[in-house]
């Protein structure tokens, strides 16, 4: 009986000791968090507005509501937030008045090649902004220097049977990628005013025109 009591006491003591050690360990490994206000302050101090007027550069430093959710969820928002972003971004899309979404694929190819615009060395602007599509996507067989962050878009229109509904869908994806894929890595070219409506139409043509090199 005595032995059992001693054993139990020892076990208790050992157990307690171990629990304290574990607690200490947990405390030591507890993730340090930084307040949003601190992050904002560090950004503002570390990124002085240069060289364009502050009214253009200042807003760049602050994420909008969609970007806040995307960053906080590592670009994998849970269902409710996913749907909320889809809805909010869809509402930001502006459509051509004549419902014609197709421009000139030749101009589109030049926009897809160009990474020019909005970088701090691009002021004052000497060229129109580019879409830099090839940085992340394969588009045509001729251009072998393409990136792989986004999916290959080779044969994009052909694979979709050149349907009118797909023409509109392509316009929407380029105008605001998050309306189709919330927390996509792709820029919101229309919503963020990187590309004009006409430029987006030229890119739609590059993807969807039957005679575009994308579909050859």
């Amino acid at each position, binding site marked *: 009986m005595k032995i059992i009591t001693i054993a139990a006491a020892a076990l208790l003591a050992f157990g307690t000791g171990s629990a304290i050690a574990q607690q200490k360990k947990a405390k030591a490994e507890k993730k340090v968090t930084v307040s949003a206000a601190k992050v904002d302050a560090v950004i503002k101090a*570390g990124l002085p507005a240069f060289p364009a007027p502050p009214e253009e550069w200042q807003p760049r430093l602050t994420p909008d509501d969609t970007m806040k959710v995307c*960053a906080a969820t590592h670009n994998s928002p849970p269902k409710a937030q996913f749907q909320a972003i889809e809805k909010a971004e869809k509402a930001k899309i502006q459509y051509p008045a004549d419902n014609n979404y197709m421009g000139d694929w030749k101009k589109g190819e030049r926009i897809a090649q160009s990474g020019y615009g909005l970088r701090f060395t691009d002021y004052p602007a000497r060229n129109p902004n580019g879409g830099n599509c090839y940085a992340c996507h394969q588009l045509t067989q001729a251009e072998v*220097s393409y990136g792989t962050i986004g999916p290959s878009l080779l044969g994009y229109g052909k694979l979709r049977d050149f349907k009118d509904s797909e023409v509109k869908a392509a316009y929407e994806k380029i105008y605001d990628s998050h309306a189709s894929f919330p927390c996509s890595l792709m820029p919101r070219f229309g919503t963020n005013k990187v590309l004009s409506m006409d430029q987006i139409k030229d890119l739609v043509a590059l993807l969807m025109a039957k005679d575009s090199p994308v579909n050859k």
Partner: protein
Amino acid sequence: MKMRTAVLAACLALACPALAVAQDSDTEKAIEKYRQMMKEDPWSNPGLLDADRGEALWKTPRGPNKVSLETCDLGKGPGKVDGAFAELPRYFADAGKVMDLETRLLWCQEKIQGFQHADLIKNPHPGGGQPVKDTGAIATWVANKSSGMKFSAKLDKPQEKEMVALGEALFNRRSGPFDFACTTCHAEAGKRIRLQPLAHLAAPAGAKAVMGEWPAYRVSSTNVMTMQHRLVDCYWQMRLPAPEMGSELTVALISYLTKNAEGGEIAAPGLKR
């Protein structure tokens, strides 16, 4: 140009995607061979000339106070350079701040030699074809004096932990007209931008593979680029303003990246495309 035409012609004749992939891996192999040859001949890296210049700058009396940097404490005691880079960034009680190598060198030039902070951070990085600036040259030498060692910054003080957490938050933050974050390019393994492979810096394996190569001699710009300068390039691409040299933002990102690279081997100056 001729080669491009040949590739184009071949593309028209053959199944191009397969060819493009083959070409990519050939390019990669050729660059890897070039790197290997450089490693086999340790004196062939042009960045070592800047390291030599950096050593001379460290030892030469300079600035309004006309003294050398030989009393500068990089964390292991005044004047101790061997292995100092391997333990940075760290918290410095005299400055009351966490500092990476370049930020510490700014501080020493300011406090010991009497340089003005504003002068040191005005145009602190070279343009293409120009040699790395003085602070960068000194950083190249100091980093080289940790070559062969492993990243072993403790980063366990509260100030250091906060810096790492801050760096992680900045790494994930998406803003600007392109909605970019560091994670846009560096949160997945095996991705490329155009033909350029991207480092998976959010993971230890990816960070360990590349962090030890900085400062690096860049063949495309024919000069040494430091980590502070490399961050400016990232922010340029992200369509955000250029980070100020030595700002908390830069130190936080470098702290986060160095933490991810813990245990990775230092081989500075490295050699980049």
